[in-house]
């Protein structure tokens, strides 16, 4: 796979340039909403939607935006889609909307989205930007899902709300509290570096 081809732009977000584990972007939602697998997936899907729609719009109008005001223009486009997502969650999934709290509106300042607009969508065609956005969004989602799974199983002994560990297991409450989030993500970043070095 060579740089610039559609398959390369798709796969890089999943592993080699993973937004969370390698580029350390979007840490706030990653840490805050990964206390259960379902929250991780919901957040991931919301980010994929906003990322894909903003990349589409911005790569389509990239030649019309003067470069001096590009950042405010990106933010307005992103904020519009985030408002839509937030209203959708509030209407259809009020429980998840409550659990994610202010972290849905905070997608506006999620560095992943702005970084992809600045680094990719504002310089590439609509097709490539779409592929890049989906790849990056999925890369973000799987890390969130994994983190949510680890923390939910160790912290509650459940997975998607169903008990998976027997009665002998004492939930480690610290895993669902802030320290558990920081430490689990730190270990994951370390593991990623270890695997990268061996291959």
């Amino acid at each position: 796979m060579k740089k610039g081809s559609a398959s390369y732009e798709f796969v890089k977000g999943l592993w080699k340039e993973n937004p969370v584990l390698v580029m350390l972007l979007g840490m706030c939602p990653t840490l805050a909403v990964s206390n259960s697998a379902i929250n991780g997936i919901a957040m991931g899907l919301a980010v994929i939607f906003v990322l894909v729609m903003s990349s589409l719009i911005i790569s389509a109008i990239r030649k019309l935006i003067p470069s001096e005001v590009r950042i405010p223009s990106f933010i307005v486009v992103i904020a519009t889609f985030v408002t839509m997502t937030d209203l959708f969650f509030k209407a259809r999934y009020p429980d998840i909307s409550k659990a994610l709290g202010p972290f849905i509106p905070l997608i506006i300042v999620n560095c992943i989205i702005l970084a992809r607009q600045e680094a990719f969508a504002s310089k590439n065609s609509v097709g490539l930007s779409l592929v890049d956005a989906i790849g990056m969004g999925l890369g973000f989602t799987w890390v969130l899902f994994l983190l949510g799974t680890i923390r939910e199983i160790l912290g509650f002994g459940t997975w998607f709300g169903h008990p998976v560990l027997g009665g002998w297991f004492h939930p480690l409450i610290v895993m669902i509290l802030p320290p558990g989030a920081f430490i689990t993500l730190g270990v994951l970043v370390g593991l990623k570096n270890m695997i990268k070095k061996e291959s």
Partner: protein
Amino acid sequence: MSLFIIIIATVLVNNFVLSYFLGICPFLGVSGKASSAIGMGFAVTFVMTFTAAITWLIKYKILIPFHLPFLEYVSFILIIASLVQFVEMFLKKSVPGLYRALGIYLPLITTNCAILGMALLGSLRNYNFIENLVFGFGAGIGFTLALVIMAGIREELEFADVPKPLQGAGITLILAGLLALAFMGFSGMISGG
């Protein structure tokens, strides 16, 4: 009394960085040296206090009377972006010393999620004007505190023997976890908040 509780709650008990996970990017990025951590902390506190005042006025004097609550996010982020720009111009003209000290940290603040997070949390909690102002100030001080403590630890870390794969981001996150554990000692000091 309640204003005092808001300050203690935002600085220690519900520290923005360590228990709300807001402003993690600058927390990881700028906490390498204590001097830059202090500069960043002051810039953020400054902008946060102003943001708290202006977003409150926008919400209660414009958005609610004109039935435009769906514009909340768009208007808040635009206010923050223009406020950062304005603060930058103001400092450059009238307090050049402080401007030079803050330097490159000012423009970075726009995308700091702690600022928008503070504006949104304050709006969710229906604070009155003074409470919101104190909340914004406390959030900034809490951010500065976490950043400076972390920078102090990381300066010492340069002499430690960290396993190779954990060097850099890995060990910083684990340290943040331990720091968060320490800050959890404050929980229960104030209920709610």
